[in-house]
């Protein structure tokens, strides 16, 4: 990394000058320049490399980006209600995000979420830390996932996402699963349906070891086989 000390000092003095004496910003975009504000009010903030490539977008939901892959924007079918920040990799592809939102609808139902995730290269989230609430159900946790080796096929995902719910859509999703084009959850530490859980899964996404404590305090360690059958349970009293 280049030493930036001189530039920082320069930048800092520019800030002071700006604040004290005022500054006119008339240089071309390519020249480094510092402009100072006490508060900026924006609907969307794009942070870019010097060559113009986008590295993060901080936005309200009205101007929120869709899914950007190699600089091309696709509609994001399930992320239409988020504000926050999207991260982009060196190649202009979504790389993660920190998003949040919540509202009470006219029937009094709350939907709410906070979500931080990091994605595998050209793929979906490998790490997600989140909380969500929907229609009275709540969950919160840290989840680590496997993602397919192949890059996400956005054309195909968009086509399936746009299909009407029904057996044809289910068949397309089953095909994606069979071709191992969908990620698998591998380990989670979470609270789901009131139970505190540690779940470790195999490469097929099947839970094989579960530690849990129920709301009323029942504690157990369960070992499961590949068919989901519990083959050993360790409890305070037995196992």
């Amino acid at each position, binding site marked *: *990394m280049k030493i930036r000390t001189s530039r920082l000092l320069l930048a800092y003095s520019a800030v002071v000058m700006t604040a004290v004496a005022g500054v006119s910003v008339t240089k071309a975009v390519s020249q480094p320049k510092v402009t100072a504000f006490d508060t*900026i*009010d924006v*609907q969307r903030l794009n942070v870019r490399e010097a060559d113009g490539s986008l590295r993060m977008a901080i936005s309200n939901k009205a101007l929120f980006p869709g899914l950007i892959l190699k600089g091309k924007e696709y509609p994001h079918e399930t992320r239409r209600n988020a504000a926050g920040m999207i991260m982009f990799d060196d190649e202009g592809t979504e790389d993660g995000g920190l998003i949040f939102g919540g509202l009470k609808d006219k029937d009094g139902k709350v939907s709410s979420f906070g979500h931080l995730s990091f994605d595998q290269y050209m793929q979906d989230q490998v790490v997600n830390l989140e909380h969500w609430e929907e229609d009275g159900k709540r969950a919160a946790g840290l989840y680590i996932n496997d993602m397919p080796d192949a890059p996400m096929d956005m054309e195909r995902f968009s086509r399936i996402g746009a299909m009407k719910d029904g057996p044809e859509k289910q068949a397309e999703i089953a095909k994606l699963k069979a071709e191992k084009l969908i990620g698998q959850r591998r380990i989670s530490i979470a609270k789901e349906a009131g139970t505190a859980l540690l779940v470790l899964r195999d490469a097929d996404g099947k839970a*094989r070891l579960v530690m849990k404590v129920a709301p009323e305090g029942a504690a157990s360690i369960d070992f499961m086989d590949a068919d989901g059958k519990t083959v050993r349970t360790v409890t305070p009293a037995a196992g």
Partner: protein
Amino acid sequence: MGLPFDKLLAAGAAGLATVLAGVTVTQAVSEPKTQAFRTLDVQRVNLREANGTLRLVMAGKSSFPGIIWKGKDYPHPSRNNAAGWIFLNDEGTENGGMIWGAHKGPDGKVSGFGHLSFDQYENDQVLSLEQGEEDGHRAAGLTIMDRPDRSMDVAALMAAMAMKDGPEKQKAMASLSEAGFGGASRLFFGKEEGTTQVVLKDANSKPRLRVRVTPKGDSAIEFLDADGKVVRAMTPNAG
């Protein structure tokens, strides 16, 4: 990249017009001032206290800071390929960050990461949540660490880094452990080389209790001694 510059120009006409035509900031420091934009395009955002102390930097890799220590920017020994956020404490010293980046090299090998961390005062990260891929190896998880009680001696690191390669430099780098660098990993939750695990470690970074599931589904809870030997293993059918 094919970013929607046209759209942004249209969308952010007011903001861009302001930037291109010049902004005159003439208010005194003490008067709060607010500038409003619909969309703002920048390479770097510095968030500061009223007295100028830097608290947050958001930047692409071309404008990314080094290690900022009491307001001074030093070159970072390893962070040369990141975009993201750096958090700074009340004294203008780095105390965490959220950084990311990914690209495919000319050899077709992917290198990518997403990383959130919080640092001990005047030392390195004690908590990190991350995913990474390098040369076909993937890992993701939450790591908790011990760090030395003393501050990192940044001047000692800079002096060692500036030395010519050779035995003298190796000696200087090795002695950094007496200058506040280093530490011990105490807890890991996540996946490494396909195995999901929770590992609790002693102050020497030795795993002493491990809960794991392999990709094929072999599961165990293991107690280990200080030499790394498993002294008790609970599996689906034994222990």
